[in-house]
């Protein structure tokens, strides 16, 4: 289907079904129950899952295929956001022109930064990209405040001179981003018994774009171009002596992944029309690196998983406070309750960073291929359990 082989088609379909059913899958616990804390099926987080999924998919095209570790990719996310918000301010609240401009702008920035940074390889390349991103962050936060809004971020105002569209709504509010009148923030809620499922326009818009991005990523992975990128990671010398010029290939990969980042930035701005400079700080660049490695660099689905896990930790685990903990363990005798809460407390709520750090370490120690390898091991264990007599041919296949 769509020029994909059977295995990839299955993968794409699974991802499509998962994203389309996310409002159900992420809200497995009934409203008001103790476990409802773990529900992630609200629009903002679902949007973040897919947007950071796009960011990580794009990053993986560069890092997973060519092995070039960019430590400044968040800069393109920032550029995309700024471009999109400026489009909202100046042109129209329609998200399409904003996304188009954001992708173009981030592509141009990626072209320039990539052209210079790709003159070096290895850690030298990483530091060059880091330096560019940090410079962009520092300038955006300070001297470029008139363009970027500085500390408070670039946001919409009632006085924006919107060429196509009104500066303010009839009620005197700032209009919201929309796709030809379909507001990104509008939601329908479906209540089934104690469950509550939210279907958000913005989420589905992002999800569709993510699926398209994912599909394109699969095509790139399976294309001759993708093979060349993997060849670059494997042996640049041989590639050169085989008559291929690695530079345009790496630059193209850099620009493509920069455009993915810009797309993610534009979607962030479309869901929530604000662009802050922190988006470009090195920790943000580091985050996408961690997402990719955590999920499994070079695999198709890994980066999306990694993005999901990190965003889940950040948004769900960080919100559990000691009151909620006491609520959970209220059934225990008092002394034991306090003891259990005291044991768990450092790892949740404001201690969510600790859990994250431990998880990074555990995953990389025990699952060198990231979460995807974990999945493969489980699958293999099942397969082995099912048919012990089957030959072990499957295990020699390269990991995907």
């Amino acid at each position, binding site marked *: 289907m769509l020029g994909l082989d059977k295995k990839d088609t299955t993968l794409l379909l699974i991802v499509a079904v998962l994203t389309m059913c996310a409002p159900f899958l992420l809200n497995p616990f009934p409203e008001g129950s103790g476990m409802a804390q773990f529900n992630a099926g609200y629009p903002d987080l679902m949007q973040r899952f897919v947007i950071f999924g796009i960011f990580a998919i794009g990053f993986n095209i560069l890092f997973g295929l060519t092995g070039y570790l960019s430590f400044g990719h968040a800069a393109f996310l920032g550029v995309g956001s700024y471009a999109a918000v400026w489009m909202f301010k100046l042109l129209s609240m329609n998200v399409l022109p904003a996304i188009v401009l954001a992708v173009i702008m981030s592509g141009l920035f990626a072209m320039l930064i990539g052209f210079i940074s790709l003159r070096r390889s290895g850690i030298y390349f990483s530091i060059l990209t880091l330096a560019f991103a940090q410079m962009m962050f520092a300038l955006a936060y300070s001297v470029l405040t008139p363009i970027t809004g500085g500390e408070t971020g670039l946001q919409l105002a009632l006085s924006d001179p919107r060429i196509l569209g009104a500066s303010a709504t009839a009620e005197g509010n700032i209009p919201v981003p929309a796709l030809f009148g379909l507001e990104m923030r509008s939601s329908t809620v479906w209540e089934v018994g104690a469950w509550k499922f939210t279907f958000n326009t913005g989420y589905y818009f992002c999800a569709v774009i993510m699926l398209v991005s994912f599909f394109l990523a699969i095509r790139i992975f399976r294309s001759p*171009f993708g093979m060349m990128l*993997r060849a670059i990671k494997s042996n640049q*010398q041989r*590639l*050169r*002596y085989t*008559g291929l010029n690695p530079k345009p290939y790496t630059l193209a990969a850099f620009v493509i992944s920069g455009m993915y980042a810009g797309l993610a930035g534009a979607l962030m701005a479309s869901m929530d029309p604000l662009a802050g400079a922190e988006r470009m700080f090195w920790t943000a660049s580091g985050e996408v690196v961690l997402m990719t490695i955590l999920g499994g660099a070079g695999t198709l689905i890994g980066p999306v998983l990694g993005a999901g896990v990190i965003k889940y930790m950040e948004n769900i685990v960080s919100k559990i406070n000691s009151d909620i903990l006491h609520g959970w363990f209220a059934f225990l005798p008092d002394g034991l309750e306090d003891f259990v809460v005291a044991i768990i407390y450092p790892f949740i709520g404001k201690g969510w960073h600790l859990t994250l750090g431990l998880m990074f370490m555990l995953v990389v120690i025990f699952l060198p291929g990231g979460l995807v390898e974990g999945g493969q091991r489980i699958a293999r264990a099942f397969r082995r359990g099912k048919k012990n007599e089957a030959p072990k041919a499957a295990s020699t296949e390269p990991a995907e």
Partner: protein
Amino acid sequence: MGILDVKDVGKRFGGLKALSDVNLSVQENTCHAIIGPNGAGKSTLLNCLVGKLIPDTGSVMFDGQSVLGRSPHEINQMGISRVFQTPEIFGDLTVMENMMIPCFAKRDGAFRMHAYESIAAERDLIEMAEAMLDDVNMLDKRNMHSASMSRGDKRRLEMAMCLVQNPKLLLLDEPTAGMARADTNNTIDLLKEIKDKRDITIAIIEHDMHVVFSLADRITVLAQGTPLVEDTPENIKGHPKVQEAYLGESH
């Protein structure tokens, strides 16, 4: 005029004279060996031919065009393929993928943005690669992870990758270095077969006299950066200067 003409090439590294006054002409459809003791400048000369180094003086013409100042991939596109001393292949890729890359390079040039196409759809190239693999008896290994193969297989794969491009000139840099006798003989057989079957020019740098005398049509002896003598294998064998150069090395 040969297919490859090296004229007055000189190269210095700081104070060290690596090459001087090298003149060499490789004739079409012959196998030309360059031999010489360690440090004679063989590798430097080779690197000057493929664009890794730029000589200080002189010219290198291939097929009527200068190769100087061109980068390795451009020189490959002109029709020169190179086999390395230790096999250079794409270790993370499968054998078949290793074969497809030169096929694409041959057809599409140094860069093409074929990011949306599918490899599976390139029937012609796949057939081409498979035929070549068949030629080197590696078709059964097509889905193997190439890094996990034996050194001999890697060597054969590398040759196949070069040959599938149908190069005008095949450069071999000590193709049997570090090989066991049996592997060396296999390689010689393989090269002989290639030579007989195809219209191809081969330039080989080699240490192993056995290999050289089994394959070469002409031999150039290099010593201290300068060609000592150039002749047929028969004449080289008994040449006093050659013996002197090689004896000199052992002392």
